[in-house]
């Protein structure tokens, strides 16, 4: 008896089991068509799936497994300058706030930009760009500036 006949027999006996077997057959067929590297990645993820700590992790693993099974051609986007030069209201507000705070705290500490750069280990042109509101600082930068000014990070970034 071939697989199709066997499947028909099971379908007749137990439709739910047949649906399960059909799903396995489809996935098995898809896996067999994958290159070996992809199969290895899939099996590695399968191990992670068994040990997933929570639903979030399980979902992330399943999404990557689906990405492998889909095997869609890769596509790359070119991050152009114009992408980050168009104004964003929320970001502009944040940049305006942090630039003002850095300048105020630096002046209160009686430091020049050059002195703050030396104390923080950041390049002086970077500090100048931050105070001019030309760049959005990372948490690492804010931490370095706060440490150099001997103030808490929250004085510069209340969300920290």
């Amino acid at each position, binding site marked *: 008896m071939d697989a199709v006949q066997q499947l028909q027999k099971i379908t007749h006996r137990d439709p739910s089991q047949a649906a399960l077997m059909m799903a396995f057959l489809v996935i098995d067929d898809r896996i067999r068509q994958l290159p070996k590297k992809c199969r290895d990645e899939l099996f590695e993820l399968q191990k992670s799936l068994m040990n997933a700590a929570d639903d979030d992790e399980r979902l*992330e693993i399943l999404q990557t497994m689906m990405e492998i099974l889909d095997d869609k051609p890769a596509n790359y986007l070119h991050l152009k300058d114009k992408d980050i030069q168009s104004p964003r209201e929320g970001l502009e507000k944040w940049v305006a706030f942090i630039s003002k705070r850095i300048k105020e705290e630096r002046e209160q500490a009686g430091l020049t930009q050059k002195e703050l750069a030396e104390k923080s280990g950041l390049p002086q042109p970077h500090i100048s760009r931050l105070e001019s509101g030309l760049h959005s600082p990372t948490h690492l930068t804010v931490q370095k500036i706060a440490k150099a000014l001997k103030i808490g990070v929250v004085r510069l970034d209340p*969300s920290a």
Partner: protein
Amino acid sequence: MEPKKQFKVGVHQGGGPEPGYQWTALIDSHSFEEAQDFLSPDQYHHLAMQVKELAMSDNPKSSLTIDVEPIEDFFELRDKGGVLGKINARIYYCVDVKRRRIVSLSTWNKKKEGPTPEHIKVRVRRRMRIYYELADDLDLQASAI
């Protein structure tokens, strides 16, 4: 969420980085979609600025202003606070020295303490492998958010 706008651009073979940049910054479309899932346009914009900052530097494998750590053959950019609020953002990227490209491979919102989990490493390794298989013959699209 604002609609995604994408359009194709012609990129000639051997085309180098934009003026003022030492590296061309690319994003794997999966990484772009992951970013859209948990970042607002402001937050995406902030992280894009950091990637472009790396693209301006001599060596995007480390930075004085951005928290960057090597993991295996790729790198992890870490940031939180500020416009990101409580999001603990991670960008996994590779540095293609030969073609002077930085390629963002995955964007992830890290919710738990601890090292990078294995499934994220598998995801990044796979996308990096595919990138290098295609690296000489890419049809690039401009990302417009």
